[in-house]
């Protein structure tokens, strides 16, 4: 067994070591508790509980939402762990319910978007590692802004549904799927010369409409338009939903697809009809 040198065998030092170890353990537990307060780990696990079939069908759903019929999320009545005898309704995890939002697809789509734009920039000879960071920050800003819009809307319209912040984050990430498709198709067809041109705009318009339709379908379930609330408020809610799904998403998706990287600095392509010039 290891025989350490002098000072470690001194009982005083030994006690000091033990005290240090226990102090570190206490500190670690403190950090853990606070960490768990900010990020509810078990709730997050629910969003990552996906299966292959779910991922495939959900991706197809985001891109082709036209014929999907039942938009409601399935619920189960499970026995509540805290109260004896009463049941609480919980939503089924994504594994068993196609309508349930997940965080796997949005997260993967986000990272794929960052890597794809960097790859295309590299294929045009404009690669530098800072691009990864810049694109990442750009996309993060988009997400944060969208969350802000959603949160404000929820606040002003008194929508007190049980939607949590995680659901909103999940839904805001689905547009990256459409953005990826737009960029990829445009890159292939235009040979990387940007998302301008009629092909780019057509694909963009299509994915935008698909995404908006998808969101309206999902959100109308989340913010249930019940008959008990006032008519005025109901129409306000529908307006908000409409504005959010179509207008706001249009702005964000356009922002995400229109980044150019001429001379190494991302510049948003200006106006409709101008070809994005990515080449040398």
């Amino acid at each position, binding site marked *: 067994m290891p025989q350490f040198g002098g000072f470690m065998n*001194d009982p005083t030092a030994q006690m000091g070591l033990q005290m240090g170890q226990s102090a570190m353990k206490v500190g670690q537990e403190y950090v853990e508790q606070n960490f768990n307060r900010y990020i509810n780990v078990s709730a997050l696990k629910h969003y990552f509980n996906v299966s292959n079939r779910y991922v495939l069908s959900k991706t197809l759903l985001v891109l082709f939402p036209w014929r999907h019929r039942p938009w409601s999320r399935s619920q189960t009545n499970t026995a509540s762990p805290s109260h004896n005898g009463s049941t609480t309704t919980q939503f089924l995890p994504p594994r068993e319910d196609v309508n349930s939002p997940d965080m796997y697809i949005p997260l993967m789509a986000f990272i794929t978007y960052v890597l794809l734009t960097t790859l295309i920039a*590299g294929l045009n000879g404009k690669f530098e590692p800072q691009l*990864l960071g810049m694109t990442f920050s750009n996309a993060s800003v988009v997400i944060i802004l969208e969350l802000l819009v959603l949160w404000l809307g929820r606040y002003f319209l008194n929508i007190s549904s049980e939607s949590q912040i995680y659901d909103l984050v999940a839904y805001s990430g689905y547009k990256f799927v459409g953005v990826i498709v737009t960029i990829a198709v445009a890159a292939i067809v235009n040979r990387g010369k940007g998302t301008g041109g009629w092909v780019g705009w057509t694909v963009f318009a299509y994915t935008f409409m698909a995404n908006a339709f998808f969101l309206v379908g999902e959100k109308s379930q989340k913010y249930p338009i019940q008959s008990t609330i006032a008519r005025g408020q109901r129409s306000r809610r529908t307006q908000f939903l409409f504005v959010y799904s179509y207008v706001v998403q249009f702005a964000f998706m356009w922002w995400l697809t229109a980044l150019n990287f001429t001379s190494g600095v991302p510049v948003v392509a200006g106006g409709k009809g101008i070809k994005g010039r990515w080449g040398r």
Partner: protein
Amino acid sequence: MASYGYQPNPAPQPQSSYSAQNNLNFYQSSYPQQPVSGHSTPFQAAYGAGTQSNAYGASGTANYGFGAFPAQAGASGQMGTGQSGLRTGWLAAFGTEGYEGEPPLLEELGVNFGHIQMKTLTVLNPVARIDQNIMDDADLAGPFLFCALFGTFLLLSGKLWFGYVCGLAALGAFSLNFIFSMMSPPLSQDEMNAAQSQHYGGSNHLSSTLTLGRSSSVLGYCLLPLVFASLLGVLLPLDSLIGYIVVSLAIAWCTYSSSAMFCVVGRMTNMRGLVAYPLALFYVGFGIMAIFSSRGTGRIDAMKAET
């Protein structure tokens, strides 16, 4: 091992006579001689709880490190004067002997070349069966070596991107660990207790069998095919068709082996495709760096052509 005045003592040994045998007790203990067994003081009792103290008392050489710990000789003279087992003399100072029973340096550092080799071969062999306990000692020596090699080969092909490699590796390790902890099935209570009581490198608060150490270890080991690809990139520019093919093959190989490892270590069965996609993205990041280093894009050749 020549030790001055060392006598192999049987276990129960009066410490006082032990110190008396010692001729090299530089610093005489100023404390009165304590009674026989080493359990007279609370410190002694606590410290002597394990078998260590007896063995130490028996094998601790009487060789007292010169000038090292005078105060402690007094305070813990009970422990025997053979506290630090270093040999004295200028010849020993230039030698490599250390304390008695000290483990070799590599073992102390946790660098086990046998394990490193075994894990590397597991990665390189696409048809190897992966043992569930292969990642129980999640060392980072191999991964660090591979990342350093990757950076070096990138340097040899024209770009000083160690920082970016390091940043991407760290960011990827954190986020992939997070994702896979979320995706893996939650731990049962027994596993939680076992994990907490054993204190692997850091506690695991994400309720999974994956810790950050293990994730980083798996990711680093499976980077090896990309290291080969970057080595190839030193010789020929990777921004050509053959370069794309080679790097794509390397990425596929990395993803294949790392997804296998993660599925085994994280107990995520039937989810291999879902596990493989984030890993593929991670290695594509490295692949992009390998392809688009300046030698790869032919920029250097272009610059040469201009002059």
